[in-house]
């Protein structure tokens, strides 16, 4: 049952990461919420065009991408959990796996874009495709930034593993707290990226 004692539940409320990152995350969520609403509103004005254009989207690509991001979020959550332990072991692996999932997302996205563009579909083709390219494009930008964040998390994890192995290095308690705060902040950003796609996928690909 050593797992249970290491898997400590925080008894007092704790903001994941730091307050500042939530200014950004919530701000971003509000803006994407606005995007979603603008999309659905305009769709209502001209649903035929949207319906027909949507039929050309590859739902399998969209679903695979959702699974990629969900898996990457899972790996990030596991990595963060590992970083909280006294002896850090698997965190670098988890963050690497998360990065690979992110890469998978990127590859599928590029394949998808290339297919559309070579079929002559661009962001000025019609309203639906305008939203499709711009929203998935902005989201993809967030994913790319997120990959940078994952690299940062991986570097922190690796350093933590090396510290665990070398007993001559000890980190001060508040330094460790600061580090966890940064790690939680980065992880929260990545989960936001996942979250936005979870809504974007049915909105663009599935809702008829």
């Amino acid at each position, binding site marked *: 049952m050593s797992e249970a004692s290491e898997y400590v539940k925080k008894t007092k409320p704790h903001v994941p990461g730091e307050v500042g990152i939530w200014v950004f995350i919530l701000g971003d969520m509000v803006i994407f919420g606005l995007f979603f609403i603008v999309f659905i509103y305009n769709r209502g*004005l001209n649903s035929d065009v949207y319906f027909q254009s949507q039929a050309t989207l590859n739902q399998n690509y969209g679903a695979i991408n959702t699974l990629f991001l969900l898996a990457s979020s899972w790996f990030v959550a596991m990595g963060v959990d590992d970083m909280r332990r006294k002896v850090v072991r698997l965190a670098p692996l988890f963050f690497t796996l998360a990065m690979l999932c992110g890469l998978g997302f990127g590859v599928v996205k590029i394949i998808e874009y290339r297919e559309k563009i070579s079929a002559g579909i661009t962001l000025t083709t019609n309203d639906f495709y305008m939203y499709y390219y711009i929203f998935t494009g902005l989201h993809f930008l967030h994913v790319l930034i997120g990959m940078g964040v994952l690299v940062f998390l991986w570097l922190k994890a690796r350093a933590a593993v090396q510290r665990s192995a070398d007993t001559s290095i000890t980190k001060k308690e508040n330094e460790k707290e600061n580090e966890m705060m940064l790690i939680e902040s980065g992880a929260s950003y990545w989960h936001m990226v996942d979250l936005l796609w979870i809504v974007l996928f049915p909105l663009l690909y599935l809702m008829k």
Partner: protein
Amino acid sequence: MMHQLLKPVSATWLFLMLATSLSWWLGQDQAFSSDISSDYRIVSSGLMLIAFIKARIVIRYFMEVREAPLALKLVCDTWLVLVCGAIIYLYWFGSAVSAI
């Protein structure tokens, strides 16, 4: 290895994967029967609801907002309710809104 899979986050992830697969399946054409025109709208609304339930799970369990101060929990839930509500409302009544 097994203990990783037994963690709450792993159960969460599994559930989210299943919900995604369900949504993907529902989104396929066979789920949208052509006869009753409002039928597909119910399925689509359901897909949106599932999406926001998934989003809430990501917020609560992956982002760990479950252990956050009440204010943050409320703000996140408000976002979920407002955006989901607006989307579903406009989806059903959008043309009526634009006629104003």
